[in-house]
């Protein structure tokens, strides 16, 4: 009973947070509405008895949203987010895609013939998770780790030093790009 109340409460809060991401006109509020939503998802995972995954979701999402605030000053036109802005671009298209994805996932969940539980839940879910990730899937995880790391390095390399505003002026309308070295994309 209590866990059902918690489940539906968290679910409602998660969806409400997700909706508010698109309703708020402030970057900071949108970021923290999204964080609220994701923390509720972490809570749902905790309710499922997957303690480790739930807590890790809380940890990762909090840090992720804080880092998003760092990216805000790196890339946004109004770094402090003090003037109103909207998170929506291509409203109709986004709405259609979101609705379609939701219907597809919900239909999948409801129409799948879920098997009944065989065996018992593990006594130490964290241990089992670690064994299954680092046991038979070790190679996958190592490859994934390297791929993620390479992506991070590539992103930093791409993001560093000069951006489009240096090349095309503050309003992005310069007739030709201003590059210290000739060649490259956009020429």
């Amino acid at each position, binding site marked *: 009973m209590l866990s059902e109340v918690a489940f539906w409460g968290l679910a409602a809060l998660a969806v409400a947070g997700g909706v508010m991401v698109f309703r708020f006109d402030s970057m900071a509020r949108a970021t923290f509405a999204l964080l609220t939503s994701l923390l509720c998802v972490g809570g749902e995972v905790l309710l499922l008895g997957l303690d480790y995954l739930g807590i890790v979701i809380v940890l990762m999402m909090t840090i992720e949203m804080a880092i998003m*605030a760092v990216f805000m*000053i790196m890339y946004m036109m109004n770094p402090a987010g003090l003037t109103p802005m909207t998170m929506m671009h291509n409203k109709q298209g986004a709405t259609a895609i979101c609705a379609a994805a939701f219907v597809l996932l919900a239909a999948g969940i409801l129409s799948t013939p879920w098997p009944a539980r065989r065996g018992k839940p593990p006594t130490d879910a964290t241990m089992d998770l670690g064994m299954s990730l680092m046991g038979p899937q070790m190679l996958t995880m190592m490859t994934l780790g390297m791929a993620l790391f390479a992506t991070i390095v590539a992103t930093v390399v791409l993001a560093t030093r000069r951006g489009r505003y240096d090349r095309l002026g503050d309003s992005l309308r310069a007739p030709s790009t201003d590059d210290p070295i000739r060649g490259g994309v956009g020429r």
Partner: protein
Amino acid sequence: MQQRRRTTAADVALTRLGVVLLPVAALLAAAVVPLGFRSVSDLADGIVWFNAMEALAWAAVWLAGWGPNSTLALIGGYRFLAQGLAYELPHMLAITTAALGAESLRVGEVVDTQAGLWFAVWMPVAFAIYLLSAMAMAFWGPFDQPAGRDVAGGAAAELSGVDRIVFLGGRWLLLTVAAAFSVPLFLGGGNGPLLPPWLWTVLKTVAVLAFLVWIRRKVPTLRMDRYMEVAWVVLTPLAILQALVVALVVLVR
């Protein structure tokens, strides 16, 4: 009781959220810190829980800095995020090392493993890194730039009245909890001769806290961009080496 200071076009809701979140995060983190051998909740993943709750302080300080729509407060908030990015990596490796030594993420088991030898003795690097990050997460002592005097109090610049006491009290609370968590992780928890376990915990916590407060008087403020380089280029490899040594010891044991 002082009136709250008002700023133009402030985001009051987010400021309040940040101010309240700081002590709340510290209290939630304290739930897994045992007094003696008993804690509010000895979660199976207590160490990860502590880490997650302490990460909420990132959000709290940034919100408190961003909300008032004031330049110096904003600078303070962003300074803390930069500092967080600097200290978090070696910090996570340090607390992971303690978990590795006990082969468990449960704080209680980490304490039980130290009935003989304290982790601080055979994982000195991890312990030292933990103490550094304990100060950094509470933006304390040499890491006080997010609330530094050069930016008129930084993240706390515009806070007044009850907001100020809750926020700065939350910072104290976070420092105390961080110091208290070093006791079960590295200093044997409630283990000790003669005295009861709870008293040992309190004594060790007071000793660590006294050390951190003493450091504040001895070491000048450190800029977070400089600490970033030290943390990523020196401390992170050291922490990995320490984890490697501990992993080998655990495997051989």
